[in-house]
């Protein structure tokens, strides 16, 4: 049983992935957590023993309805997403957790930046359906290099 955390501000996405992991056989292999804000996500990482994080990059600090999704705010929120990634990779307690970026930001710069900060994979959200995301998850968790000392098999 692996613990997966998805951090995304789009309720539709969160709901869809929650649904996807709520049926067998995924239900038996994974424990799925959803977080809509950075704060929420950080809490879960600290509270639960998370094996893998699916991270969107454009993330509000605290949850706001989409009304504020203007470009400036998105720029700011993007920084929050990157900050969280950096933070998790810096913290000794969390740096071993593999992080897959699941974002609709498709710019090459953003991808390079994320990989540079220590993301394991960069997946463009609209290009994949949940089953494909699962394949990536399995590959990351199955690969020996991705295992760290901290990771314990449940």
């Amino acid at each position, binding site marked *: 049983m692996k613990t997966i955390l998805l951090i995304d501000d*789009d309720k*539709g*996405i969160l*709901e*869809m*992935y929650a*649904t*996807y992991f709520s*049926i067998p056989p995924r239900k038996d292999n994974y424990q799925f957590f959803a977080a809509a804000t950075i704060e929420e996500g950080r809490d879960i990482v600290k509270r639960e023993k998370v094996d893998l994080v699916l991270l969107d990059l*454009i993330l509000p600090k605290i949850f706001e*309805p*989409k*009304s*504020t*999704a*203007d*470009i*400036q705010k*998105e720029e700011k929120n993007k920084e929050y997403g990157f900050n969280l990634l950096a933070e998790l990779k810096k913290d000794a307690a969390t740096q071993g957790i593999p992080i897959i970026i699941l974002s*609709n*930001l*498709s*710019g090459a710069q953003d991808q390079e930046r994320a990989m540079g900060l220590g993301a394991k994979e960069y997946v*463009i*959200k*609209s290009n994949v*359906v*949940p*089953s494909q995301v699962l394949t990536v998850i399995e590959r990351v968790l199955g690969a020996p290099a991705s295992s760290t000392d901290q990771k314990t098999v449940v």
Partner: protein
Amino acid sequence: MSVYAAAALVNAITSSILGLFVLVRNKEVKVNQLFALFCFSVAFWSGCYYLWQVADEATSALFWSRLLMAGAIFIPIFYLHFVLNLLEKLKDHKLLLVSGYVFGLIFLFFDFTPFFITDVVPKLSFPFWPEPGIAYHIFLAGWFFYVVYPTILLYRSYKVSIGIKRQQIRYLLTGMIIGYLGGSTNYFLWYDIPIPPIGNILVSIFVICTTYAIVKYRFMDIHVLEKNLFVYTLLTLYMFSAFYAGASIFTQYIGDLFAPQTLIAEVLLTIFFVVTFVKISEQLTEVSEKRLFGNFFQYQHRLRELSQELTSVIDLQALVEKITAGILETMRLERVGVLLKDSETSDHYKIKKVVGFHEDNGISLVRDSFLTKYLEEKRTPLLYEELEFILKDSLPGDQRTQIETLANNMKHIEAELCLPLFLQKKLQGIIVLGPKAGGEAYSQGELDLLETLASQASVAIENARLYETIQDLNQNLEKKVKDQTKAIEDQNIKLKGLLEIKSEFLHIVSHQLRTPLTTLRGLLEFWKSGEYALFPVEKQKEMQERIFISTERLNQLIHDMLTAMDLEGGAFHFTFERVDLSDIVHAAYEELKDDFEKKGLEFRFNPSQEQGVIMGDPRYLREVVSNLIDNAQKYTPHGFVEVRIEKQADHMILRVVDSGMGISEEDKQRLFQKFSRGSRAEEAFPNGSGLGLYIAKQIIEGHKGNIDVFSEGQGKGTTISITLPIIQ
């Protein structure tokens, strides 16, 4: 030999030499020929006079006296002919001249008859003085007439002439008057008045005066170029006469020229001559330079050099300096000024350089345009003298005043000469010259030289001006190129900025587009894999609903994007017509009715009694209103959305008020910022694309209206108001 015979001999020799000289110098010219003829008649008369004086018996004396009269008869006739020719008055006096020659021929005939001279009788010391016959009296009257008339002509001409011609006539006239007066002393004895012909020697005065006019003023265009020749001739004469005088004194008083005592005297005398020779030579040179030749030939040389140098100077100011300095130095003046037109086409003159004149004084000459017009018309240098003579004539009143003013001006600033600078018939400037050192008049030769200099200077000035223009053009061109390069660079930066904004915009928009697409694809996978069957029916319906919402959102995004693009590109055309805002609100609400009912939101709209009719584009206005109501609905979880229409003067105000979440100060400010990175405006209104309010604002502004947002803070509701002019 009597004094009278000697005087006659001198007269004969000098007038012959003068006549020959004039003829030889330019025998092609009529004036010279006539003057020579006149001289020869004088010489003939004087020669016969001499022979008559030395005759020792009555028959030959009578012969020579008759022959001398033949010369005397023609002196005034040739004089008249010469004067008429010199003054170019031949045409008006043809008859007079013919009458003169007829007169001469008649009396030449009578001359050898007893009617003219009856006999020779002793009078005073003269043993053979002629007795007048009947014809003689008539002749004398005619003779005086033909002498006086041309003299009057000369005098009149002298009064109106200027410059060098005036000087020439002056000396000619003086010489003639003195000569004739002297010659006339012969007539007294004819009428038994006991006055001997003492003035006879004065006839030579005319030779001296004419020679002076020739040497100094190039009378009859005779240029005596050799100053040295002149000096050496005089020195030779001096030495010769000194030797001759010495020799004659010695022979007369001491006896033998070669006697020992004479030799001592001769040695002493020689030493005296040798010592005085140097002094006299210096004196002669000085006198000839000062009084006769002046610096004329030096001028000629220097001014020519200056003219050549001018062509090599290309800087206007330097050129003017050179002209000024050159004239000052060459002509030894104290005052020179150069006035030039501002530009070739301008009528405004500026002082380019003054030396000796006061600046204000210089410009006072051209304060009125009289001088410039005058110069443009006359096209010759203007002498102050000339104005004085003009003023002596009768002139129309206003012209007189103008010339008087000009003359006074020139006198006041002590300007002697205005030298016009012409370029292609147009006056370009004036060189103003002060008086010459010693107050001498400007000679014609100097004026000619100065004119040549002026024309060279004009060309050089024109060149310098052209050069200046080209320099200016160059500089302007350089500046223009710089400016345009800068403009292009600026444009480039702007375009780059725009491109960045566009790509940023596309980036964000593609992100926006991907979000609903993700959900859409993810959810559809449940159907594809058949897993949907695992969910309860409600869950399935919910998922289907979400798929539908996602497609709607995609559709809305595409619509907004395209509209925004149109607005950006300026391809936005409104078709104005009468629009009732109430109708628009109703139609918009009809579309959104379901959403309201689903959420249990109250929609309030009380169309006012006044009709909300304005001129506008219904399609776009509906988009705005619909957008505003939809936004209000979306961000109002519960409560109401109210639309109010109000007429205010010539404007209609539509307000969408909600009891929703409100809007923060920070967001409010960003709401209407311009659409660009860093200060991206407009967009920010919530419909997911962030473009709704941007589009709304563009449409309202296209209707010359305003859009504003009011909110007392978060959770306190929002009011968006649009103000539209009723008539565009």
